[in-house]
């Protein structure tokens, strides 16, 4: 289990890479996270996370095209590896397991509290 552990931010990054499918390069990932989750992402944190995921083998990358606004620097596109998929799934399963284990009554009360 421990082997496939994903941090919270790492999980978000990987999921976003999945969402963007084929168009996942760093700026796009950043924009996507920022727009979907309304949190700001620093370039440093993002790149560190992407690198870590790649080192672990959850992501792989390839060089893409260079554009004018990047002053000729190439993009690096990321995609999720099979291992990455497994890690994501494991993460989701463990969450789901936890979700399922919560007693219904708690939900109701907290729902009620939300209503107040």
């Amino acid at each position, binding site marked *: 289990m421990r082997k496939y552990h994903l941090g919270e931010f790492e999980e978000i990054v990987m999921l976003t890479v999945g969402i963007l499918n084929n168009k996942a*390069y*760093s*700026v796009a990932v*950043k924009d996507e996270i920022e727009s979907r989750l309304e949190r700001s992402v*620093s*370039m*440093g*944190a993002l*790149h*560190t996370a992407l*690198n*870590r995921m790649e080192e672990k083998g959850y992501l792989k990358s390839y*060089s893409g095209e*260079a*554009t004018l*606004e*990047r*002053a000729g*620097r*190439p*993009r*690096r596109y990321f995609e999720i590896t099979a291992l990455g998929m497994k890690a994501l799934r494991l993460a989701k399963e463990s969450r789901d397991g936890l979700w399922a284990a919560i007693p219904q009554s708690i939900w109701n009360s907290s729902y009620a509290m939300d209503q107040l």
Partner: protein
Amino acid sequence: MKESRPSPPKTFLAFFQWFCHPRMLDYIEGDLLEVYQSNYKKLGKRKADWKFILDVLLLFRPGIIRPRTQPQHFILFGMYKNYFKISWRNLLKNKQYSLLTIAGLSLSLVICILIFGFIKLHLSYDDFHTDKDKIYRVVTELRSTTNSHSGGVPTPLPVLIKERESFAQKVIRTYSAPNVRITVSDSNGAHHYKEAEGVVFAEPDFFDVFNFPLKAGSAKSALSNPNTVLLTEELAQKYFGEENPIGKSILLDGEYELAVDGVLQDIPANTQFKSGIYVSFSSFKTYMPWLSDDGFWGGISSGMQCYLVLQPHVSPREVEDILSDYTEKYPIGSSDTRAYYSLQPLSDIHFNSMYGGTMERSSLWILTAIGLLLLVTACVNFVNLATARALHRSKEVGVRKVMGGRSSQLFWQFIFETAQISLLAILVALIGAYLVIPMANARFNLNIGLGVFSDRYFIYFLGTLFLLITILAGSYPAIVMGRFKPMAALRGKFSLQNLGGFNTRRALIVGQFVIAQVMIISAVVIMGQMDYVLDAPLGFDKDAIVMVSMGDDSRQNKTALKNELVRIKGVEQVSLCNDAPASENGWMTNIQFGDQTEELDFLTNMKMVDEDYLSTFGLTLVSGRNLTHSDSVREMLVNEALLHRLGVPSPEEALGREITANGGNMKGRIVGVVRDFHGNSFHEQISPTLLTSDLGYYESYAIKLNMEDSKSTLAEIEEVWKRDYPNQPFEFEYLDDRITRFYQNEATTLSAVQLFTGIAILIGAMGLYGLVSFMVVQKTKEVGIRKVMGSSSLEIIWIFGREFTRLILLAFIVAAPVGWFLMKNWLENFEFKIQQGLGLYILTLGFTCVIAAVTIGYQTIRAASVNPANSLRSE
């Protein structure tokens, strides 16, 4: 790309580029720029800048910062490997050029290494003594109507300082007696050794002040006891062979027996103390009683020296103040001469010629300059050949540029190449210097040890040379090649003319010629002056005269032997005298003229001669008659210079007047006036001179030989001489050899200048040769077309010749005044000198032209005689 695009803060971008891991650099930099662009559009420059800075700072974290071991090295190493390979191939491909450059560089480097060794040696003079910064020599300036300087002090002064003053830890007196004779007797009889460096009489503390380590025996006791002596190992071996020298005795000047009490290690080359024989100072009392007298204030001998080791915190100025009291208290000799004392630091002694120093600091500077100039000449070769050769490499440069090589990379590539060549040249030069140093030592009497190679400063020196050559020779070609436009380079659109400024190369050649011509001018002037001083009429005959020293002072023997010598077949004339007409050290005396009671305020050179002196040396009388035979002073001859100083208008008026000399104890009437002759070297004016007879003062026989069979005549003279003095060494010297020795320094200077000139010419010629052979190749087509159009071979040669003639003329215009000025200064040392005539300069110019013509001749003639059909067909 034309529209100006907003750019993020440069510093932060550079900072990012610096710290970012190279693997990610491009991607992240692209991201940063992309985000910046969009921020710029959305939020404006200020906010975008801020966000950019923030991003950069947040990127500064472990996963992104580059590791400390820089992977770049790996990449560059490959590049260097390539540079190395390419430059090596280029060296091998153009063997001729490589040889010319490397030979030129190493030749000049060998000279530089020699000069370094020489300067190092002289700067290290006496720097190995423990208290070297506190050791001073007391020197004297004598002031009366004229001033003179001496490295010596009055004999009693050191004693008084020791007794009365407290500023010095140690006070020592030394007396050095040059040119002594050492006699060593063993079972095989007596052996005589002439020691030009002489002996030093030294007080017991001598070896506490100066660190000359002892090998055996005790220095202190050796120098305390009378009649004891210390020898160096070298001399001990010379005198006694392998036997233990201690306890043996040597005879100084045939009279003073000294017991060997200790052996010193050999004296190093870098000290002013050249003598290897140290005698206890107490022995000096018997050696020279009059000078060693502790009340002798009558004069100063430059051999009598006083060294002080000052107490800490005592400045030389304070000591000089204290010594000024002695100036008034103890006048020297006659009452109006005052001695002013000052302290000379130990390090200054070797360099200060005023007090007898033998090496001028300026000479060291001149040598440094010469070394540098030779190096520059060689670098000029390199620059010229390299830029000319750059043409061949334009394709390489073009390809490199197209593949993304930057100008700076190309620059460094060629610097690297130069570095490689200069390293090679340095290696060759090291081997060369190693072989040459022993020869140079023998030829110029230099004493450069091979230890110079292991010197720490030598490594720095080589490093500096290496950098100097690389920068001097490499930067210009490197800049030129780095600047190639890739398109033009690939299309081969360069020609020699538009390559790296043809004028730069011309200027360099002119510079080379200037250096060479200045040296040629110097060499020619010095040679001219040397010829002049050795061949100019001296006013007396110096040929076929041999000076034989006398065996003893006995009056009868002197005349008896003279009579015997005259009878030898092959001896034409014999004269008894104290010295030849020309000598290095004269006997100077004050004289009184006529009935004046005061001594005149100039010194007169006095020579003791017999009646045959004039005829032996061919001196001519202007007026009056020769001396008649006399054994004591009765009659006198004077020279014209003396008459002039005396203010006597015509020679006739002087006849019969009385002169008193040598402190009043010699009196005589003038019987004749001798035409002026050169009694000193040409460095000096003709001094007022007095000739008179006194048997007691004669020291040599001047023998005029018939040169037809001089060898056997000399042998016969020796035989006769030996019969009278069986235990004495027979010493003789030809007069012209002695006169040649006056100019020993100049002779050494001359051979050094000749050597430097030769090398400068050689290096210059090598460069010229390389350049011309290159030009010839470049102009093959032009020559072909010209020939087809009807040019003659001579005209073709002139195309090349014209260019170089112009350059030589231009160089000459610069070199002539420089050379003239330098040589004018050098000639100032002589009272009698040649004029720097026009002929000399024409000679120099002609010589340079001939050298250049010979150098370029072969290549140009070959170029001119090529069949145009061949040269035009080749493509």
